[in-house]
């Protein structure tokens, strides 16, 4: 939905631009923390835009591992409540897979009754996405239709075309940022646009060639064929697959403090027994195997039914963090091949 001509940003102009932006809002970007790329508040350190997509997805800026829903204060038997307003943020370098995940979450959290803590953060955040011209080793976004090129949902979109970034705007907010900082940009040439297409085609080819993932249809078939008891036997129950998944959004709610305190919510995982267990002790998904099966069913059957979009964006993080060293996709592949 590029509605203005694409612009071009020198590699060298990126830092001055975000310096400018960080005067008005918190700029979040992949930076190196002790040598590894992580999404964190940019404070002038070297950017890790060329590194692999960080292990922890920037979805945490909309759905943090832990956040305060509201504070409660008791005074003579009655309570008063207070909520923190969201921060104005700009996230730089969000990859197409994570962008697609946010699109799915927008649908889930934005549907009535919409989830205010999520949507308020979404509305106060500008997303500067970056197309994947050198995909990571475990990525299979192309199989899930979420990358390596971002299609929509960004405010601005960068593509590294070698000499600099091609910059496209995807929203009025994005255009506003471009206009307000126009001195950093120049007009993009047709060569820049061509180079973008060339690089993304190469990236897509590379991902498809690896054949890391099955098609969604094959996966649905494989879920039925998989020996979930065997997966249960191997699973070391860390919950990491849910905690890194940019589409996973299960949360739990807890209170901390009497008489005054906070109601918090924290990321949760449906792989834990306590997730579905009721206080009576009855558990509708009693075995770990059933819960792991549910994890896949949700992504490939239930979320698509609800949102029209896959619940997997092919970022490959669940395999990267799997403590049992179970390649999440090879389990399924074995089941049908």
């Amino acid at each position, binding site marked *: 939905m590029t509605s203005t001509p694409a612009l071009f940003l020198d590699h060298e102009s990126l830092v001055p631009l975000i310096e400018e932006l960080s005067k008005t809002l918190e700029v*979040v970007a992949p930076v190196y*923390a*002790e*040598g*590894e790329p*992580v*999404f*964190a*508040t940019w404070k002038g350190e070297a950017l890790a835009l060329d590194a692999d997509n960080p*292990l*922890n997805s920037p979805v*945490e*800026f909309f759905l*943090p*591992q*832990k*956040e305060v829903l509201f504070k409660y204060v008791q005074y003579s038997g009655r309570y008063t409540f207070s909520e923190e307003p969201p921060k104005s943020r700009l996230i730089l370098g969000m990859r197409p897979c994570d962008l697609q995940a946010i699109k799915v979450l927008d649908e889930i959290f934005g549907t009535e009754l919409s989830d205010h803590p999520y949507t308020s953060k979404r509305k106060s955040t500008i997303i500067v996405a970056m197309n994947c011209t050198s995909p990571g080793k475990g990525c299979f976004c192309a199989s899930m239709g979420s990358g390596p090129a971002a299609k929509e949902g960004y405010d601005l979109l960068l593509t590294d075309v070698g000499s600099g970034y091609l910059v496209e705007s995807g929203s009025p907010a994005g255009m506003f940022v471009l206009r307000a900082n126009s001195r950093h940009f120049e007009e993009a040439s047709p060569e820049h646009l061509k180079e973008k297409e060339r690089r993304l085609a190469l990236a897509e080819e590379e991902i498809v060639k690896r054949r890391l993932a099955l098609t969604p249809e094959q996966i649905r078939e494989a879920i039925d064929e998989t020996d979930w008891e065997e997966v249960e*036997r*191997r699973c*070391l*129950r*860390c*919950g*990491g697959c849910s*905690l*890194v998944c940019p589409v996973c959004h299960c949360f*739990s709610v*807890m209170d*901390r*403090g*009497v008489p005054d*305190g906070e109601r918090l919510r*924290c*990321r*949760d*995982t449906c792989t*834990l*027994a*306590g997730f579905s267990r009721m206080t009576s*002790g009855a558990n509708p998904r009693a075995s770990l195997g059933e819960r792991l099966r549910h994890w896949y069913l949700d992504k490939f059957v239930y979320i698509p039914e609800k949102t029209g979009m896959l619940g997997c964006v092919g970022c490959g993080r669940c395999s*990267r*963090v*799997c*403590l*049992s*060293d179970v390649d999440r996709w090879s389990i399924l592949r074995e089941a049908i091949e």
Partner: protein
Amino acid sequence: MEKIHTTCVYCGCGCGLYLHVEDGQVVGASPSPAHPVARGRLCVKGWLAHDFVHHPDRLKTPQIKRGERQVRASWEDALSLTAERLNEIKEESGPDALAVLTSAKGTNEENYLLMKLARAALKTNNVDHVARLCHAPSVAGLGASLGSGAMTNSIKSLLSADAILVTGSNTTEQHPLVAAHILEAQSRGATLIVADPRKTQIAQLADIHLEPCLGSDVAWTNGILNLIIERGLADEDFIRDRTEGFSVLRESILKYTPEVVERISGISPEDLEKAAVAFGEAPRAAVVYAMGTTQHSNGTDNVLALANLILATGNVGREGTGICPLRGHQNVQGACDMGALPTVYSGYQKVEDPGAREKMATAWVTDLPSTPGLTAVEMMEAAEVGRIRGIYISGENPMMSYPDRDQVKRALESLEFLAVAEIFPTETTALADVVFPVASFAEKDGTFTSTERRVQRVRQAVTPPGEARSEWEVAADLMKRLGIEADYTSPKEVMAEIARLTPPYGGISYQRLGISGLHWPCPDPDHPGTDILHRESFPIGRAKFFPVEHLELEVDPEYPFLLTTGRSLFHFHTGTMTRRVHLLDREIPRPAVDINPEDAAALGVRRGQRVLVESREHSLEIEVDVTGVVPKGTVFIPFHFNEAPANLLTVQNLDPKSKIPDFKRTSVRIRRAD
């Protein structure tokens, strides 16, 4: 949001993780991809390591006991009262009426300073910590046979093993990241042998699962070695060149024939044979063990038997081999290294060695006591009879973690002065005269030394809650009040002193540690660290074989069940932290005793019903979980829960060689509670 790279606070794996910090609050954790053990992964406790940090239960102000109540006090009052009372007791009854229990949860710098506090300021060697209750037999056993009680190889080294024997370790639950390495080795072709009476997850994943009955470890280990030697699978070159005492050992184990082993342990001759061949034939074989080996009244013998096995097969000093005692706490190795033990200074320099004593006394500008001190459990005994009158406890919870809770309570209550430094109120702080609120791992700088001797950075992510302080500051302050110079401005300075006085840490400095840390021994600033010990020689020259015999234990027909204790995946130790982590507490909210289905049927109990578990002295009411994980005749209770403290039942049946209590085998009987 900032992301601070630090080291996990739970088990000895020592995983690197990021703490996510937003507006001065730790709001998340994620694994470190570049960390050599974590490799971008964490166990469920690690993923949730952030959740207890800002819990409202955190201790935020010092407390002093006034009458029966603990009341809020200033740091000045709490510190001066502590210094005063410790001094008084020292004047009246001599320094050995005092003791210090340090913490395997504290940093190296804190353990070092508390050790120095005990020795230099209080003038007593009565300093110990929880290692007494976990790996004292490793220190005693491996110290005697190999010359060092530490894990010989790195965790990564397990990846290149051809056979791995795991015994007395519920690795998948207690050291998940070590388990991940073991299972990766298995998937690359290594044979995994697990000896455990319980059908733990790793036992179920094993190629060979030996199910010995409790207390038969020496017998089956000797039996395996006997078969290995008989088959000509022993490493004769290694035995000849690098060990001594083999012929006596050879003689001593001849009687452990497969038939005898079967009678003692219940392991079939076929299974024993399979295990012996797999281990004996492997070019590189490693042994991994933990509390199931050490926490017995013959724990040291169990360790020696395993040491004999790796020595006779030449599995020492190479990648993929070795003996790996897995440490329970993230810094129990470091606390030992720092000399938080009654017999040694940092770096295992003996207090009885005049040279070592002179060196430390000079550095600390004071005189030092020469007689070794009391061990943790001995301290409790001494306290009960009034020989110890004052104790400083740093971050330990003896009321939950020591055997025979009643005796510990009597001991702590009979003290004239008890100071406890903690992050949360515990069963132990409840008895204290002074409580110091201290910083958690997220709130301080320092180093932890993991189970594989890896010295790693702990980095401060947020400030401590309320008035809480880092314990290195508390220790330094008390030292100053007791007349010892301690003008440290940061843990980094403490590490510089440690490096100066501790040969294996000689080359360690914060600048060098980065993400991966360094394996000690690292004697000088240019030394790359030592991931595999004993490559060329042993610290004691030749390694020694120690013949060990099976100890026949009586079975009391009145108490026909054997109770074994331990931990679960979702909780850590006495639950001080994990029971305050929302998802972990939800996963296992209540204690339960695991009973085999056959036993449950015979007792007429079902899952969820309540039973009384009775030892000779005590009884405990607890919910039943019926599970095939425990064999018939054995029951299991985790010791995380104060509403059913497993250690009410355990007894102080000490291993004579290491003074470790037998947590793993207590005779009990069971009946329905209604």
